[in-house]
């Protein structure tokens, strides 16, 4: 499950393996800090999620070999080898590409909910945020995902409410 979390959060095999390795090392080294107050899985998922987010931050600082200058500064080029990942998503609904478009705080919450199956309280414990924030992040993450899948890239805040 740790690898699955990392695979979905990082979006590719190589980074997922690196993050999983870091997570396992942190778990082994930090076992003495586990005091049994939380469920073991909650603690381990927290370690894993943090390892994944750290790996993504490291990746964002890494030089990008083989990129031509014309793409410099384009954040989408680095991760998907495409000028616009939304094009990739429209052409084929790919979970990695869709998740890649989410801010990482939304992505982690969505993955912990939909892949791992944790409830809001458990996600709050893993991410160390309030349950209300979990609810909001999952909703906003799913909203973005739903829009990506349907091909609509307009931010929800710019749309008109059709409700009375």
């Amino acid at each position, binding site marked *: *499950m*740790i*690898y*699955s979390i990392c*695979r*979905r959060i990082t979006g590719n095999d190589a980074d997922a*393996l690196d993050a*999983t*390795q870091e997570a*396992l*090392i942190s*778990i*082994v*080294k930090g*076992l*003495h800090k586990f*005091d*049994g107050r939380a*469920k*073991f*899985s909650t603690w*381990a998922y927290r370690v894993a999620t943090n390892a994944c987010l750290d790996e993504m931050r490291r990746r964002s600082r890494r030089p990008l070999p083989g990129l031509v200058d014309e793409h410099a500064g384009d954040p989408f080029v680095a991760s998907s080898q495409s000028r616009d990942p939304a094009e990739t998503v429209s052409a084929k*609904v790919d*979970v990695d590409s*869709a*998740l890649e478009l989410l801010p990482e705080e939304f992505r982690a919450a*969505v*993955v912990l*909910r*939909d*892949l*791992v*199956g944790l*409830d*809001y309280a458990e996600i709050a414990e893993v991410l160390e945020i309030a349950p209300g924030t979990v*609810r*909001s992040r*999952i*909703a*906003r993450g*799913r*909203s973005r*995902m*739903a*829009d990506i*899948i*349907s*091909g*609509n890239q307009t931010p*929800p*805040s710019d*749309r*008109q*409410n*059709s*409700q009375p």
Partner: protein
Amino acid sequence: MTDVFPSDDELVSSYLDGEATPSEIERVESSPQLMARVAEFRRSASLVATPVAPLASLDIDGLIESALDSSHTSGNVVDLAAATQTRWWHQPRVLAAAAAVALLALAVPALRIISESGSEMDSAAVETGLAAPTTAAAAAFAPLNDDSSTSAGDSGTNATESADSIESGAPTATTMEAQGAADFAHQLPPADLAFDPLPEELLPTTDLISLGTQVSSLLSEFHRAGAVPGDDQDGGRLYPDQVPPACAQQMAEVLFPGSSAADADLSLVLADYATVVVDGDEFIVAVVQFEDAASLAVAADTATCSTVELLEIVP
């Protein structure tokens, strides 16, 4: 795409997750628009829930090995006395004698199998099922024997209860008490059971990571001597994909109190699994090495591990 007000997305999302209040549920279900949005969110959720391709056993082994190596080379020396007062698994004076008894519960019957199968042991050894130790094995056992000789009276409880639960194969509590802690020195593998030399840094058995490692090593060596089943050369070790899921779940609940079914994968990652045969009955053992302790669980039912006994090996 369904157009809904952004705040309604929170409502829809909570509804989908079963986290909405009754009034929220009513509101969603009364609105075709919101129900359409639920369908969109459900599709998104099912996409994220698509299972990730599993890692190969080789990759898993590499990850685990690296993680454990990092622990061994960290040089982090734990104050065992202080730790004993705070850790949940610590039971005073159980000490390494519990580990010795645990090892005996597995080792003695296994070695008896070796003797019965006609291994080259001298007559005295055959009589007891045991023979003189190799140097490496003796070095690995010696500190355990020293500790157990001073505290076996107290330490036997946990382990002998576990031994009792291993119905036909393990020595009975009476047998083990009769053997006495001082006899542990003689309960060693036969001379013809070749042990790979253990790394020097693992030999002091007050370090319980080492102890867990030695338990794993012993299980592996027993296999090489023909005492445990398995075709590979890595002893009776069970790779994660060889451990029955129900068994992993049971072991997780025993090794990590407070864990749930979702922790089965974690127990596969963090514990070493092996099979061992005792008087013809097969058992599954799982060893998990903590920073300053090791736990060994023995399951009598290899299909579901429904009967599991936990030995907490404490310094």
